């Protein structure tokens, strides 16, 4: 795209305007709302743990290998912690790496926060499996605080 030079005809300018307006109109309102909400992070001390593995995507990549298909597994990684999750029959089991005790909070987008404890080897279990969107906040006894992005199982 070159500059809007005075060499641009009226038709071209109108076309450029149309592209500009439709580029904005293509963005769903909830996408914009989520971006606005991200500003709340400026007064949260927790570090964001980002999704670094999702079995669902891996299945997609290795569609021919069936053994991977049974269990949904996710990994979230921040600078200092990794949170590994697996969806079991009727619970969500997780482990914090490096292994250490921690407080794990389940923060649903709608509903109340649930706090659980991870044992000395960092294992925890959330029952029942959270419905809808949620995120996990993890506070280790060493004072490291990490929060995952939104998760939908």
């Amino acid at each position, binding site marked *: 795209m070159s500059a809007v030079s005075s060499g641009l005809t009226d038709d071209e300018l109108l076309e450029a305007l149309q592209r500009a307006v439709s580029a904005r109109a293509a963005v769903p309102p909830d996408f*914009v709302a989520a971006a606005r909400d991200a500003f709340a992070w400026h007064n949260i001390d927790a570090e964001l743990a980002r999704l670094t593995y999702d079995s669902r995507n891996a299945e*997609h990549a290795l569609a021919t290998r069936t053994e991977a298909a049974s269990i949904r597994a996710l990994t979230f990684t921040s600078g200092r912690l990794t949170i590994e999750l697996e969806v079991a029959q009727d619970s969500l089991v997780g482990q914090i790496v490096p292994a250490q005790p921690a407080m794990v909070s389940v923060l649903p987008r709608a509903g109340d926060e649930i706090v659980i404890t991870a044992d000395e080897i960092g294992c925890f279990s959330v029952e029942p499996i959270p419905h809808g969107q949620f995120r996990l906040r993890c506070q280790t006894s060493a004072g490291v605080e990490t929060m995952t992005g939104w998760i939908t199982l």
Partner: protein
Amino acid sequence: MRDDPSVIALVERVCDGDQDAWDEIVERYSPLVWAICARFQLSRTDTDDVAQGVWVMLVENIRNLRQPAALPGWLATTTRNECLRILRTARRYDPDGLPAEDLMPPDTSERAIEEDLIEAELNVALRAAFAELPEACHKLLSMLIQDPPPSYAEVSSSLGMRVGSIGPTRARCLAHLRRSPHLAVFLPERAGAIEVKETGR
């Protein structure tokens, strides 16, 4: 294009904790983030994950931006990196590896992203200029950019304008749009010396 003073002012206000300034940045540049994710052909869930990573990183790093005016470029690069990260989530034990060839969408090169960025910056300026047009011009141009475009007869009955005046009014409104200060950085020097920025390579 990268020294838009209003971006610098917005960044400064965000550093002071101003949510309105943050919302304005989001309003301007979420189409850029969206477009880059679309270029990577991500699902909606993955797109949301990318966007969350991008915006949270911006919140965390906005004070460290060396040049606030370079914010749009930072957003484009960060979005591309986050898209690559999402594609890598399929490979648990090789976080640094690039996505498998067959997962790599066709054109996600840095150059392609740079084109998205240039177009996004122009779009921001065009939308800002458009928003400030007098109401009558805004209404007319809004109608004319509909897809498919309405006939002049439809425009006439909808806006109560004579068919004969639509063409001249359209020209006047577009001239008004061209004069907008928002578009000044995209316009060549007034006195000849037209230098169109080459972006094709």
